[in-house]
């Protein structure tokens, strides 16, 4: 994640070439005070991330039922996982969903950010309106959507029929394509405001002189966008992209609540499968092994994104 931080921290970490004795001791004292400052954060990270992570790794080496006694089985969970057709299928579906959701969220988020970035009349109102869905919980939004999509008493099917788009009422959740897109659109509706805020902060940090100079030189809107705006929001864009991809890879609630993995188990995400193994089949150890694999995949994906979006100065 270090790529997100400012380059200044990266350079300051390099020790000075010729340390004088006096400065050295002061520096050491500095180090200690620094440690005190980060200690609370460190405690949280150790307590709520590192320790559970180690426990998960430990559990993944056991046959660990939800009830009863765990038994050491070494890497057997990982070997079993290798041929777990359902898990890889779920992962494939998760990737497909991630691509769809990320593309939608980034495009809509950027469009909204461009729309509300300048302090226009009513900009505050629109910003608030676009951000509102973000503060609804995923579970409540999913329940809302489940009812809106209900073919007998919901809104969408009736609306489509009234507009003459469909002949009779169509059950949106009964076949894969409409069900998948219905959920994806819900996610875009709900989360676009969040990415709008991130990207907007980037847009606002672009000095207006650049754009003005370009305009005077005769650059059109698209040219300005392509050659000035996009390169300058690289950092917030990278942040938004990584959050979006890792968030989508961990999708669970909406597929669980709206579709229950249906139609015909085709919308089971990786986390859904982990949940099923752990709390439906009571195989916590196996679920832990799946979680470790998913974590590794997420780390790889994040590193790839950081590399692709790295600033040229960092690369040197």
């Amino acid at each position, binding site marked *: 994640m270090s790529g997100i931080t400012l380059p200044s921290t990266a350079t300051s970490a390099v020790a000075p070439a010729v340390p004088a004795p006096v400065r050295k001791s002061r520096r050491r004292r500095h180090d200690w005070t620094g440690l005190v400052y980060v200690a609370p954060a460190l405690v949280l990270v150790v307590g709520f991330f590192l320790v559970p992570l180690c426990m998960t790794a430990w559990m993944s080496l056991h*046959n660990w039922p939800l*009830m009863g006694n765990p038994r050491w089985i070494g890497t057997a969970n990982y070997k079993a996982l290798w041929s777990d057709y359902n898990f890889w299928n779920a992962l494939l579906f998760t990737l497909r969903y991630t691509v769809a959701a990320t593309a939608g969220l980034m495009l809509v988020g950027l469009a909204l950010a461009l729309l509300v970035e300048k302090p226009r009349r009513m900009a505050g109102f629109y910003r608030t309106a676009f951000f509102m869905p973000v503060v609804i919980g995923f579970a409540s939004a999913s329940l809302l959507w489940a009812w809106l999509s209900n073919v*007998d008493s919901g809104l969408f099917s009736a609306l489509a029929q009234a507009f003459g788009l469909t002949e009779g009422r169509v*059950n949106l959740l009964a076949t894969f394509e409409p069900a998948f897109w219905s959920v994806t659109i819900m996610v875009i509706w709900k989360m676009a405001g969040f990415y709008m805020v991130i990207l907007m902060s980037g847009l606002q940090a672009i000095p207006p002189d650049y754009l003005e100079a370009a305009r005077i030189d005769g650059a059109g809107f698209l040219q300005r966008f392509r050659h000035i705006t996009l390169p300058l929001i690289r950092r917030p864009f990278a942040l938004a992209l990584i959050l979006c991809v890792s968030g989508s890879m961990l999708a669970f609630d909406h597929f669980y609540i709206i*579709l*229950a993995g249906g139609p015909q*188990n085709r919308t089971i995400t990786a986390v859904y499968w982990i949940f099923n193994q752990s709390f*439906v*089949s*009571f195989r916590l150890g196996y679920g832990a092994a799946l979680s470790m694999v998913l974590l590794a995949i997420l780390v790889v994906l994040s590193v790839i994104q950081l590399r692709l979006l790295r600033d040229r100065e960092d690369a040197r």
Partner: protein
Amino acid sequence: MKTWFFGLGALAAGLLAGPGAADAETFSLWVRSDGSTFMPKVVEAFNASQSAHKAELQIVPVNELVQKYAVAAAGGTAPDALSLDLIYTPAFAAAGQLKDITDLAKALPYFDQLSKAHVATGTYENRIYGLPFSGDASVLVWNKALFRQAGLDPDRGPTNWAEIRADAEKITALGQGNKGFYFSGNCGGCSIFTFTPLIWASGGDIFADGGKRATLDTPQLRDAIALYRGMVKDGLVPAGAQTDTGANFFAAFATGKVGIAPAGSFAIGALNTQHPNLEYGVTYLPGKDGGWSSFAGGDNLVVSRDTRKIAGIRAFLEFAYSLEGQTLLARNGSLPVRADLAKQALDGLDRRYLIAADAMARGRTPYTPVCNDLINSANGPWNTMLNAAVFGDAGAVEPAIRTAQETMQSIIDTAP
């Protein structure tokens, strides 16, 4: 590794609670949220009825009960007793979490009057680990107003499949959004409760050899699927049934636009209080050519392995099995589980309860320690098969049954 952590918690709790312990010996009792109406009343009455023991009740959200209990058990802070969805009793007993209460059970003079289905699921390897506590039987309900409108006898519910189909057709023909039949088509828990009785009543079963063998590949199952398939295909069922994960299980019939629906006895109380104007009848879930069956659901009372408060739990059970206890249960949404007192306990209540109580007394419950995997999971073989076979193409029926049969058998065989 989890144990020491929870152990510390238990120690701390013990130190805090130590000096204040009352004269009465207190035992802890958990119940799933489905029992949140009757359980507090029974516990309150029990605590008031004597002073030697005191039950301390905690209500746990139904979907979290198993996880919560498992975590507590791992940490040594499991409740002394638990009112557990009866289908989970074999799984809990198999995991070695429960106390063998065979002697306690056999010593009850009315042991042979207790719900057979509950005791059967409470038995694991010939020892008893759970005793019946609350009851919920599956039945068929029909809307009398719609029957009258359609020119059918409003006081006579369907008694075989052909009648279900014929009645549903007539009600659908009324139009105006009225449909003949409803079921939750994507809910494994709902369909084991209401669909298997159709198979049982026709002489089939989905398990054999005490849950060791899955037997889906039967003519009875095919016929039952064909009944549902046919009604779906001919538009006698609202389209939402296909994707109903159980949210509409009760609500659809309560709208008054559905002619016939399988339901549970809990629906009687709920309909009477929430929809007092809905005229409905209750009958048994019939077999193909008559006869009937029912899924006996509800809770078993189980005792945690390490508890030492067995005297208090025995007293609590005896109170629950008394006429007072059974009456309290009956008035608050559960069926009585003691057959010889059922009539008395239900005296003065809606007569439709009697049918449910009768259904319960002769009801059945599938027995398997992997019920969650096989049946309840929305993604398990049972639900996947039914959804595909009932709503899919005609060609999907046979592959769906074959796949489910294989998957179920392999889950049973590889169960730990």
